[in-house]
């Protein structure tokens, strides 16, 4: 699958945080998510949405992220991680 554009990646990370698949980014550092964390989060979202769990931000996954939906997170919000 073609690598997702930076914009899609940013949308994806924001979307995954919003709906409970990633911990909310730390507002102070705005730290980027580690790639394996990101892949796990994408796979979890794909499973929840009935897609093949590739862990990759492919077209079907991006399309699902653009589907109208309920604002509530799918998973209980993981507590934002604090810098040690």
């Amino acid at each position: 699958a073609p690598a997702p554009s930076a914009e899609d990646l940013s949308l994806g990370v924001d979307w995954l945080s919003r709906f409970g698949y990633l911990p909310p980014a730390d507002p102070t550092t705005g730290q980027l998510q580690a790639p394996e964390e990101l892949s796990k989060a994408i796979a979890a979202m794909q499973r929840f949405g009935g897609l093949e769990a590739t862990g990759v931000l492919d077209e079907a996954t991006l399309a699902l992220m653009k589907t109208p939906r309920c604002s509530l997170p799918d998973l209980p919000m993981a507590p934002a991680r604090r810098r040690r």
Partner: protein
Amino acid sequence: QAPAPTKWNKRNLSWRVRTFPRDSPLGRDTVRALMHYALKVWSDITPLNFHEVAGSQADIQIDFSTADHNDRYPFDGPGGAVAHAFLPGDHHTAGDTHFDNDESWTFRSPDAHGIDLFAVAVHEFGHAIGLGHVAAPRSVMQPYYQGPVGDPLHYGLPYEDRVRVWQLYGVRESVSPTAQPDAEEPPLLPEPPNNRSSTPPRKDVPHRCSTHFDAVAQIRGEAFFFKGRYFWRLTRDRQLVSLQPAQVHRFWRGLPLQLDRVDAVYERTSDHRIVFFKGDRYWLFKDNNVEEGFPRPVSDFGLPPGGVDAAFSWAHNDKTYFFKDQLYWRYDEHTRRMDPGHPAQSPLWRGVPSVLDAAMRWSDGAAYFFRGQEYWKVLDGELAVAPGYPQSTARDWLVCRDLQAAPEGTDGQAGAHARPGQRDQSRSEDGYQVCSCSS
């Protein structure tokens, strides 16, 4: 791990649409009806009961909001996040449900571009009673909008959603009052454009000219005659609004649907709240919506169990009189106490029957007492019935000709015998033409 499920401890939940969609083709009544049906989906199968209220204390406050609306789920314009609801719990937003006003909300619309309000409302009220999102593709609680779910009047929850809500609240023992076939007609939904069905006239409608009344009351200057689940209304100048009665439950919102009659009704002079009595309970109405926290026991008035036959506030002393069998009580609305020396033996007014069906004050200052198909008038400040009474209630109040029973096979309309084309000469005693608006 999944958070501990939250659920309501109480079973009777009130709801209210606080703000409606702006610039939407859906009218307010349609929005409220869709909310009623979306809640009914859940109350039909659980012990929960929902009723609409007017006050700002509703358990489930429903809003159509835009963008950031002071909660942690800002909306994002058309598409994207379309709605959310808060799970039960002790926080003040528990149960509240927000719809994105920027969506084009539709109902029974083939238009694929809109968002079906009923489908989304069923989902959100699932959250409002404690359900979270699930991945199951058929579940109504999966997070993605899947398009309309069919006709609100016939929608049934997928099995997995039923099981999950039964795990929270158990199964509804009796069939939900809103699901009973003979239950009150729920709020009207616009008919689908292609198959307008004319609702058949109801068979259980009482006939105003051949009945006695359960309760009679002057409310905001108008007269209301209650019989069973119906009532007739007269304007301030005693004009009958319609020959056909209206349905109590569709106007007086918040009474239990299984209530099949009322015992007494009166308007409290102190704050103009309207008090409905049935058995040992009473309901307080602000305008035509029941107040929060009702019904309450009649013992609040100092009345014994068993309820009342009639109630009214006498213009002469502003005291409220309650009648039961051959006794009456006098109650002071200002001190909210029963006056000493009551109950006393009825009647207080000479010539009035000792057992009553109903009593009312009227704008002429007189008091009116109803029993069977007759009524008695007591002029303001008098303690005896005015000469020439009793008279016929049906003739003097409900525009019937003397001894006009319900003609067989007709819907009882005055002049129902007029042949097509012949001008209907039906007139009441005062000689004015009687006409009924049927819509």
